Each structure stands twice: as C-alpha cells, then as structure tokens.
C-alpha cells in the first residue's frame, strides 16, 4: 500500500500542472478566461490554441533574450511578440467570425495575461527546458478551459460543439453568465482539492490498517 501511495504521490507531482497544481483552478491565474469566456467548447478550444502560441513564443523569447533586457522591459517584450502571434492566429481563425465575436475582448487578452506575466516575472524555473515548462502550463490551462467550457455548454445550452445532446439534460442557462462561471469554477476547484485529499486519506488509512493488521497477525 505504501508503494501505491508513493506511486500516487509521484503521479501527483508529475501531472502537477494539469490537476493538482493547475495554473487556473489552483493558482488562480488567467481566471477571466475560465470564468467569462468559456461559454462553449469552441471558445475553449480556440482560447487554448491561441494560448499555446503565446506561451511557447514567450518561453522561447524568455530563454533567448530574457537576460539581455532589464526586468521592467520584459512585459513589453512578451506582449509585443504575442501581439504578432495573435495577429497571425486571428488571420487563421478569420473563417470563424461567430467564435471571434463570442470571445469578444477575451481573445486579444491572450497577448497579455497573468500566465504570460507569471512567466515574465520568473515563473519558469532556472533548470529544465523553458519550452517543456511552458507546455506544462499550457496543458493545465487547456484542461481547465476545455473542461469548463464543455461543462458550461452542456449545462447551459444542452449542446456540445454546437450539437444538441438530446433531452434529459437540465437547462441551466445561468451557467453561461459570468456569475455562473465564478460559482462553477469555485466548485470545480474545491472538487479537485477534495478529491486529492480523499485519495491521500484513503491510501494512507489503508496503508495504516495493513501495517496494524500485519503487526497483529505476527
């Protein structure tokens, strides 16, 4: 059982940015996207793709030019690079005007947000590849945004990727408003925390019982 607990702790550390140390749900970074912009799965996927470009380019620029500029100039450097990335990205998705309109002010905000500024202010560890670290942060962001957007679309509109999911799903249209987003993100964050604690408690208790049983048996 100790081995299982150790294995769980290892998985917990390795998948840190996706679940237990998620940049959005645990650290509270890039919350406006998760709360206000995740009203449909399409929005979530587009945001996630835009953030991939922004984070990877920021990480590459950070490693290549970070040391050459004073700290106060870093945000300008990243936002300028991301501005170009986003310009290209908007050209690519220009065939999806409905999604662009639905994202509204949140799409341009990908160029300058707390995830980027977190990296700019030393969020990347000195050891390890900047690219891998930025991809981990992106994976966590994508998981949170796509999961929330799918859940909100399903609960709020009864559809998934615009396809009706049939009867039986209760219509909770308030889920599509920012207040619904706040409350849902709060519950999902609490759920993740609770699940982690419960798993750790169960594994620890089982290990303890087994040890006690072993001692009694002897």
């Amino acid at each position, binding site marked *: 059982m100790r081995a299982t607990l150790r294995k769980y702790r290892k998985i917990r550390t390795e998948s840190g940015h996706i679940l237990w140390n998620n940049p959005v749900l*645990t650290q*509270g*970074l*890039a*919350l*406006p996207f998760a*709360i*206000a*912009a995740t009203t449909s799965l399409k929005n979530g996927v587009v945001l996630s793709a835009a953030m991939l470009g922004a984070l990877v380019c920021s990480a590459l620029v950070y490693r290549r030019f970070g040391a050459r500029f004073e*700290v*106060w*100039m*870093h*945000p*300008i450097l990243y*936002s*300028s690079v991301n*501005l170009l990335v*986003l*310009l290209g990205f*908007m050209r690519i998705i220009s065939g999806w005007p409905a999604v*662009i*309109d*639905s*994202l*509204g*002010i*949140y*799409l*341009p*905000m990908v*160029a*300058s*947000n*707390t995830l*980027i*500024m*977190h990296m*700019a*202010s030393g969020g990347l560890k000195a050891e390890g590849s900047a690219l891998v670290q930025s991809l981990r942060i992106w994976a966590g962001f994508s998981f949170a945004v796509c999961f929330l957007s799918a859940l909100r679309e399903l609960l709020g509109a009864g559809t998934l990727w615009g396809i009706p999911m049939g009867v039986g799903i209760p219509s909770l249209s308030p889920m599509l*408003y*920012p*207040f*619904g*987003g*706040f*409350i849902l*993100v*709060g*519950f999902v*964050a*609490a*759920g993740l*925390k*609770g699940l982690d*604690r419960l798993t750790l408690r169960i594994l620890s208790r089982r290990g303890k019982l087994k040890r006690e049983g072993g001692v009694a048996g002897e």
Partner: protein
Amino acid sequence: MNNLTSFFSVLVTAAIVENVVFARALGTSKLMDRTRETQDVLSTGGALTLMSALATLCNHQVSRIEAVAGMRAHYRALVYLACISVVYMAVCLMLRKFWPGILRRVGGLLSGVAFSGALLGLQIIALNEYSTLFGRLAYAIGGTLGLVVALLMIMFARERLSFSRVPSSFRGLPILLIYIGILSLAIYGLIGHPLAA
C-alpha cells in the same frame, strides 16, 4: 453642466452597473492576489487610474487615425495593446531618468497593472462603446474606481472568510470565487440584461 452630468452618468455605469470584476471577471487573477491589504489596493488603484487615463489619451488619438478606425474590432484591440506598451515604456523611462528609486519600488506594480486584463479590457470597451474623449475617459476612470471598490470588497471578504468555518476543500480560492459569484449574481439582478462581450 450637461457634459458634467453625462460624465458622471458614464462613470457610475462603468463603476457599478458594468463593474469589470463582477460583470466581466477582469482583474480577478493576479490583481486580486496582489491586494491583501488596504494600502496595496489603494496603490494598485492609483497606478491603474494613472495608466488607464494615460492609455485612454494615447488610444483616443490612435483610434482617430483612419487606418485604425477602419480595422475590425479584434484587430483594433491589438493596436490598443501596443499603445498601452508604449505608455508603460514612456512612464518607466521617465521614472528611470528622474526617479530611479521609485521605479525600483513600484516597477513590479506598474508592469502588473499595465499588462493586466483589466486595463486592456477597459480600454477596448471604452474605445468601442464611446466616441468622445470625455466619454472614454469617464468610462476608463469609472471602471478603475469600480475595480478598486470590488477589490476592497474581496479583501474584506477574504478576511472574514478566513475566520469562518468553511469545509477544508473550499478554503482559499474556491470559497472566494463562490462569494464573488454571488455578488456578481446580485449585480446581474441590478442590470437585468446580459452584457455585450
């Protein structure tokens, strides 16, 4: 008198009815984390108001250029971001030249404020919804005031929640988000209709 009335009307709309935190979730990330004491909230608010006013002046001039005015809204937003970068650079260069000590002390705060979603979001909405400099300035300043009020409310709520008996899974960020959600629901009731993104 008429101008003054419309200025205050836009200011109140931006500060209360269309509060950036409760109605658009802007400024909920790092900005919220940065504000654990009243002094932090007020200094953040001061820096944000200054940057917001300067960025509005700059963006207003830029938005009058024909090529920019003819752009689609989402491309125009990127131009506004470039303007914010220019304003931030100008402020930092001025501080470095005349008051280097202040730049060292408030450099982090300035960059956090200038490149926050709240400032960019406010600029985009102000410049898209209002056509006069007066209206845009009123919206930008009103929005900032609304943000400061919201941050103060969140700060006091955080204090009170830390003394409350909350289930362990909900402690910290989750309960704070649910609290903001309930406040946001009240604001939604006040507006009575969905906001444009």
